[in-house]
């Protein structure tokens, strides 16, 4: 039975190039200096996560963007606001979960990560936000083999 997509015709954006990163002086500078985390770096971690429904990355679907990432390195805080493609997107929580898992693997444990949907971008905004930021719920979700499978698939493209 054909399953209908929520959003059969998403808008695709261009992928921003990574070229500008190579110009940073710290790459050639002191190797021991701790590099501060910034939005660009966080964005690099999550931009290539594949959307669960379409074969495009979150960046290309404009679900995540660098502007919507807030990083406070000193305070060890990261805040991400992502925009699901559709108001009723039932994949919103899954996308949020993928982002969280990716950051869990990529960031040092000192960081507190808050993941929310962009205000006004989802019909059940409050419920989704609450679910994504409850660590027990997230941990329980990650014990569900089906969900873990789906998350791994989405993250496969991002691991390269």
């Amino acid at each position, binding site marked *: 039975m054909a399953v209908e997509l929520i959003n059969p015709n998403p808008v695709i954006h261009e992928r921003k190039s990574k070229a500008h990163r190579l110009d940073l002086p710290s790459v050639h500078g002191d190797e021991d200096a701790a590099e501060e985390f910034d939005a660009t770096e966080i964005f690099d971690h999550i931009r290539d996560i594949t959307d669960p429904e379409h074969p495009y990355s979150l960046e290309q679907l404009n679900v995540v963007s660098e502007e919507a990432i807030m990083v406070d390195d000193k305070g060890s805080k990261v805040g991400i606001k992502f925009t699901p493609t559709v108001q009723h997107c039932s994949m919103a929580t899954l996308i949020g979960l993928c982002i969280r*898992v990716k950051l*869990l*693997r990529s960031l040092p*444990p*000192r960081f*507190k990560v808050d993941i929310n949907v962009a205000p006004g971008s989802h019909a059940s905004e409050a419920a989704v936000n*609450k679910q994504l*930021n*409850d*660590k*027990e*719920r*997230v*941990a*329980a979700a*990650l*014990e*569900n*083999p089906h969900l*873990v499978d789906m998350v*791994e698939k989405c993250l496969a493209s991002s*691991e390269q």
Partner: protein
Amino acid sequence: MPKKLTKPRPRARFYPYLIPAFYKISSYLTVLEVIHSEKEPAYVSPRCKKLNLYSEGATTLKKLHSGVTLTLRTRASDGGSSPGLKPARGAVLGGAQRPGMERGMGTFGGCPGLLQRRQDRESVGQRSRARHQMGLQGHPGGVAPPDSIWEQTGGEFECVASLEGHENEVKSVAWNAGGNLLATCSRDKSVWIWEAQPGNEYECVSVLQGHSQDVKMVRWHPTRDLLVSASYDDTIKVWAEDGDEDDWRCVQTLSSAAQGHTSTVWGVAFDSTGDRMVSCSDDLTLKVWDTHTDPTTSMGAGAGAWKHVSTISGYHERTIFSVDWSRMNGLIASASGDDAIRIFADDEEPPSTTGQPTFSQVAKKEKAHSTDVNCVRWHPTDPRLLASASDDMCVKIWELRGRSESFPNGGSANGSKDVHL
């Protein structure tokens, strides 16, 4: 931003600051190493690890804090089952010492399978139930871990009963004051009450389905058979037995409409008399509730209705996961995702204009752990001691120092290492 204290610091009975007191128990370290290197799958590893340690070291811990109720919250673990995910960070197992009884301890999320394996190595006789449960744990469908009842025989705990019924992981377990009833709650939104029968049999007395979301914690009143549950649905529910209906029912719901919390309630704690209760929440506040302001309304089990009397806010910056109210010194300790432990006291000054009591912070330990602090518990008889558990895989024992007292360096008795779990 933490709110500055607007009142002068109260002349408290002691002028506390916290010093960590470290205890060394070398056997813990050994076991820990072995477990990490075995790369167990998630459902075996973190929870088992805790249970294992708890049971192995139980007597040792008991010597240090006789009869301590190390009621630590469990956190469903992540990691391990899928390569690439980090091993679970500090999921701490819960267990509640059965009051008045040396033997019975209720725990949850335990993996007796590992216990059995450890026993293998030591050639200790295995309990067939442990083996049976290991099978259940290994079920690919992810069977919810059953409740386990453990009995201590001569320094070791062994599992004597397994209570199945919850659909999802069990979040919290609590014995009532009399030790005959056990309450459990789960992510499946229900609270179950079990009754101990002779011969280590447990029968389900009631299944309470009132919450609309996960139930995070249950706790019994210190003297009456009154049960309180805290939930993801932002409410606290009070349950009591209804003689008429021959069943338990919800006698009161403390929701945001009644000045309750506006986000997930993670924990509750009673004070020593049971007339007051404090709850902590994801909305960054602690709320104090009182029941004897209106003795005319009876809510069952002889208690009055709960009313909100105070909100403590502006201190913690992230979700407050746990709260405990000391029976000995009347202080409230709270643990939060901002890595801090804070202590609050009742100001006990003449009531302010609202006539309600007020609480202020009397001590804090920022960076108590290197990451989220999941649980705090006061020592039941020693007013100075406090235990905390965290995602950084440590359990730390703290000592509250007063201005008038002084202690030898390094705290009391035993030496110098963190208790690592």
